[in-house]
């Protein structure tokens, strides 16, 4: 971290602190206040989009742990999110578990089942891991529409309620999603700079060398798989409770590919990456909704024209980013920052 001139770390506590200078405190408090009053500034429609961004960031952050930090490519993230959404739907809808318990339970179960399905991937590397996750994705989406409770029909989810506050209101639900997102970001940020995170990165950079250093590959790969599937389940369940229903359309293979694309475009193995990529694509999505709506007339989300425009745009952007900026938006942002830190004297 770049510190301003004259700021020195003279204790370990200062060295590991996230918020170090007065300016950073001001930015932190200001952004917290901003995000708290944000839903009151915009309408319910945009609040819904913010909730979508938040839950998607949680899912992509899980993918970042597995793909960005541990180096195992996953093509099944949406499937693991489906596990979370369906578990929470069944737990809250059929067993009367309240939201505040059903979501963590769903995330844990999603982590457990996901890790179990990925057991073949533990012994493999590279392309074979991607294939194992792809198979898991297809098995999961095949399985969830054949569950005994409702079959292929969409499950409806109740919205949470606590101390008389009704969270069906998007503004209230926004705060739940925001709290989850901040908590998860904090945990993952800390996790990646402890022994666990360093072990993951060692496995990513050179698994043979990591093993020779005494890192237990099996244990750390299992933990990465678990965290990945846990976060996917959490994001999937949170989104399901907001949307009010889960159906397999939201968790198909195309979503898995998008999540991977979000991550790559955002920047793998960085904390900024999942945020940058998800926000970029969801904003693009909204822009396309408006643009196609302006051309075709009316509200078009879900219509054929819109799906076409979105597929072509997303596909083209994935390809262009891989060809021209494979390290993603996060890298480009770092370059811009370091340029303006020194501007106008670049040496």
């Amino acid at each position, binding site marked *: 971290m770049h510190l301003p001139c004259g700021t020195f770390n003279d204790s370990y506590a200062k060295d590991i602190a996230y918020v170090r200078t007065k300016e950073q405190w001001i930015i932190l408090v200001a952004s917290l206040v901003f995000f708290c009053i944000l839903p009151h500034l915009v309408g319910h429609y945009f609040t819904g989009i913010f909730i979508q961004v938040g839950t998607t960031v949680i899912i992509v952050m899980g993918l970042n742990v597995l793909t960005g930090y541990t180096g195992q490519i996953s093509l099944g993230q949406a499937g693991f999110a489906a596990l979370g959404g369906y578990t929470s739907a069944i737990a809250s809808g059929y067993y009367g578990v309240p939201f505040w318990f059903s979501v963590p339970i769903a995330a844990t179960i999603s982590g457990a089942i996901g890790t179990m399905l990925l057991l073949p991937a533990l012994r493999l*590397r590279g392309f074979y891991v991607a294939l194992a996750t792809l198979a898991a994705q297809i098995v999961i989406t095949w399985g969830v529409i054949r569950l005994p409770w409702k079959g292929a029909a969409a499950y409806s989810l109740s919205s949470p309620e606590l101390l008389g506050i009704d969270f069906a209101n998007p503004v209230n639900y926004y705060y739940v999603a925001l709290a989850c997102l901040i908590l998860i970001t904090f945990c993952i940020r800390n996790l990646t700079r402890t022994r666990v995170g360093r072990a993951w990165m060692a496995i990513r950079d050179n698994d043979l060398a990591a093993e020779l250093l005494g890192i237990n590959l099996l244990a750390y790969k299992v933990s990465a798989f678990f965290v990945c599937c846990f976060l996917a389940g959490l994001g999937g369940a949170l989104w399901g409770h907001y949307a009010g229903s889960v159906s397999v359309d939201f968790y198909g293979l195309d979503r898995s590919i998008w999540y991977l694309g979000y991550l790559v475009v955002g920047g793998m193995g960085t904390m900024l990456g999942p945020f940058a990529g998800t926000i970029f694509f969801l904003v693009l999505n909204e822009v396309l909704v408006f643009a196609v709506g302006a051309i075709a007339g009316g509200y078009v989300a879900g219509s054929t024209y819109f799906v076409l425009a979105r597929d072509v745009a997303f596909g083209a952007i994935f390809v262009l980013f*891989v060809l021209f900026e494979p390290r993603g938006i996060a890298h480009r942002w770092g370059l811009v920052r370091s340029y303006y830190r020194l501007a106008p004297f670049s040496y």
Partner: protein
Amino acid sequence: MIGQLLITGFIIGLVYGVVALGFVLIYKASGIINLAQGQILMVGGFLGWVFFSQFGLPFPLAFILTLVASFLLGVVIERFFIRHLIGEPLLAIIILTLGLSILMSGIAMIIWGHEVHIYPDFDWLRGTISMFGIGIDRKYVFSFAIAVACLFLFASYFRYASSGIMMRAVADDQLAAQSVGIPIRRVLSNIWGIASLTGGVGGIVLGFLVGVTTFGTPAVGLKVLPIVILGGLESLPGAICGGIIVGIAEMICGFYLDPIVGGGTKDLIPFVLMLGILLFRPYGIFGLVRIERV
């Protein structure tokens, strides 16, 4: 019944095998994993539909035109996208081919829409043929003939044509091939053409059997992955054998398990098979044994 399932499964599997051949060719020659093979298959099928059904050309001419167009598609993909990726990490390759596949699906949907495009039958294709006392749909016999003819042509191309021999040399050892003066770039571009051509063949056959769609055909193309894992990523005969195994397995499981679980087994079985193979024998039946144990 079982005999009929075996034979139709075998024929479908042979077609899968031809498509998987394209995947293996690219992987062997350049180490690039082509996850857009399903979309190439789809485009091939639609091109065939355009030439054969829309323009009303006679079938042999439409077939050849489709193959030429597919070949060009492969060359274009290689020239504009894949060539930049030599030496890039695996993830970049996967994302690029996936991005290409989304792009191709989107463009195909703009042009051809959601409908099932099934080829018009010619007279010979209607009805069944009786073989060993088993009635087989004539469409399957026709597909079998096309697939076998293509396999035969490919085999002789790789064995006798000098450009085919060059391809084998590049697949075997790029450095050695370059040092004896083989133009690697041109060979790689040809290999993408041929791989895409296998997609064209598969697309035409699928167009006769079940029709081409923008959502269903790429899903068929996804089955290439279980097939190549089953056969071994580096093995050309393995791709054919894997295709046949997957074809027969999905026919039999589809027939016997569908009534129990309520349909859809055909799309699941290849991937369950793949999970099993990855667990017990990740290098496949004919692949090189070089998977590191953890």
